[in-house]
C-alpha cells in the first residue's frame, strides 16, 4: 500500500535519515515515535508524496512516487487522509466546508450531502458546522481535521501528532476514533512523541510501534 525502500532524505547537506525502509500493509496500525526533530513529520510527508526522497523508492499503491506528475499525486492523495499537526484549514471557510473540501476539489460535492452530517456527528461537531476554524478549540479542530481526512473514505489515514495540542481526555477520544477507523479496515499511521498515549491504547489495537532516532527506523522495544 505504502512502501519506503532504502529511502534517504535530508534538508540541504544535513541528512535526516538514510537507507530507511517501511511497509504499510492494508489494515495495519502503526505508531511512529521519536524525539522532536528526528524526522517524523518528514517521513510522513514522504508517505503522502508531499516530499520526494533524495534516493531510494517510495511506492504509493504500487506507483513510484518519484515518477508521479502533480495531477497523479493529487489522485493518490485522495486515497490518503492526512491529519496535519497544524490542521491546515482554510480559515475563510466554515468547518463543514473545510471537512467537505476533499470532495469539493474532487468534483464530488454531491457526496458531501450524504456524508457530511454523519461525519460531523461521528466527531461530535454538528453544532460547530457553521463556525470558522479559528473559533474552535484545539480538540475540536483536531476532530474536524480527522473528519476531513476520512471524508473521501481513504485507504490510509496518516496523523501527525493528532493529540499534540489537546488534553488527555480529548487525545483518548481522538485515538478511539482512529482505532474505530482501523477496525473498519483502514490503514493507520500515527506520528507521536507521546509514549503514554501509545501505552494507553496498546491493549485496544494491534499496533506496531516504530521509533525514528538518529536517522534509523527501529521497532520499539517491550519497554514501551
Amino acid at each position, binding site marked *: 500500500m505504502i512502501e519506503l525502500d532504502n529511502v534517504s532524505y535530508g534538508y540541504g547537506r544535513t541528512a535526516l535519515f538514510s537507507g530507511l525502509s517501511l511497509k504499510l500493509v492494508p489494515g495495519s496500525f502503526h505508531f511512529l515515535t521519536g524525539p522532536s526533530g528526528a524526522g517524523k513529520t518528514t517521513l510522513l510527508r514522504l508517505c*503522502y508524496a*508531499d516530499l520526494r526522497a533524495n534516493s531510494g523508492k517510495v511506492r504509493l499503491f504500487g506507483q513510484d512516487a518519484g515518477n508521479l506528475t*502533480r*495531477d497523479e*499525486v*493529487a*489522485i493518490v*492523495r*485522495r486515497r490518503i487522509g*492526512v491529519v*496535519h499537526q497544524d490542521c*491546515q*484549514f*482554510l480559515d*475563510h*471557510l466554515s468547518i463543514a*466546508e473545510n471537512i*467537505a*473540501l*476533499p470532495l*469539493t*476539489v*474532487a*468534483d464530488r*460535492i454531491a457526496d458531501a450531502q450524504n456524508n457530511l452530517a454523519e461525519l460531523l456527528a461521528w466527531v461530535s461537531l454538528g453544532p460547530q458546522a457553521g463556525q470558522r476554524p479559528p473559533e474552535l478549540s484545539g480538540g475540536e479542530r483536531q476532530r474536524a481535521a480527522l473528519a*476531513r481526512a476520512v471524508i*473521501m473514505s481513504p485507504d490510509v489515514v496518516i496523523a501527525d501528532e493528532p493529540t499534540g495540542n489537546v488534553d488527555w481526555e480529548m487525545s483518548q477520544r481522538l485515538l478511539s476514533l482512529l482505532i474505530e477507523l482501523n477496525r473498519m479496515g483502514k490503514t493507520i499511521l500515527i506520528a507521536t512523541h507521546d509514549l503514554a498515549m501509545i501505552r494507553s491504547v496498546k491493549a485496544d489495537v494491534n499496533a506496531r510501534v516504530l521509533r525514528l532516532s538518529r536517522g534509523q527506523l527501529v521497532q520499539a522495544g517491550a519497554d514501551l
Partner: protein
Amino acid sequence: MKTILAFIIGDPLADGAVPSTGVSARLTVFVAAAMAFLAVFALALSLTAGRLADSWADDLAQSATLRLPADLDQTNAALRAAVNVLQTTTGVASARVLEADEQRALLAPWFGPDVPVESLPLPQLIEILPDDTGYDVAGLRARLQAEVPGAVLDDHGAWREPLLAVAQRLRLLGWSVLALIGAVMAAMITLAAHAALAANAQIIRVLRLVGARDGYIARAFVRRFTLRAGLGAAVGAGLALLVLQAMPAADVVSGTGTHFGFVGLDWIWLLAIPVLSAIVAFLATRVAASRRLKEQT
C-alpha cells in the same frame, strides 16, 4: 455554449475555496475598464480611417475631371469637341459640363458665396463618370490631346493615392494600438494573477494536500479574472460610448460624410470588446496559473 454558461455561472463551493483578493480584483477591473475605454477610441479611429479610405477609393475612382483652360480660344468649340470625344469614348457613362452655380459652390469656401464666376477667367470643367467597365485613361488622353489641345484630364490619381495611403496608415495605426492595448492588458492581468496566486500560496498548498489537481486550482483563478476583465471592459466600453456620443457629430473631412465613431455594423465591434477582454484575461490567467503552479510544487 453549455460549457461557457457553466464557466460563467461557476460552482459557488469551488469558487469559495479561494478567497477574493481585494487589490488584484480591483486592479483587474480598473485595468480592463481603462484598456477598453482606450480600445474604443482606437477602434473608432481605425474604423473611421477605413471608411474614409473606402469612401475616397470608391467615390474618387469613379470620377474624373476634364479641364479646359480659360484662355483657350473658341471655348465653345473646344467644349463641344471635348464632349464629343467623351461621348464617343467606350467606358464613359456620362460627361457633364459643370454649371456656373456649381463652379461658384466649389470656390465658395475660399472666396465666399458671391464670386462673379462669369467675369473671371475660370477654366471650364467637365465631370466624367465611367461605366462599369471603365475607360482607357491613356487612350482618352491621347485623343483629347489630338482633338482638344490644352485640355487636361485629371483622374484624381495624383492626390487620391497619398490620401488613401494616409487613411490606410491611420487604419493600421488604429489596429496596432488595439493590439498594443490587448498586450498591455494581458501583461497587467498576468501580473495581477501572479500576485493573487502568490497571496494565496498557503491556500493552494492546502488544496493540494486534500487532493486538488492543478486544473481545479487554476480554474478558480481563471474564472474570477475572466469575469472581472469582462465586467471591467464592459464598464470601460460603456463610458467610452458615452464620451463618443457627447462628441460633436462633425465630418472628419468636410463634405465626405464620414463621422468619427461607429456606423452600422461597426457597433458589433463595440460589443466584442468586453468579450475579447475576457478572452485575453482567460488566456493570460491560464498561462500565469499554469506557470505559477508548476513553480509552486
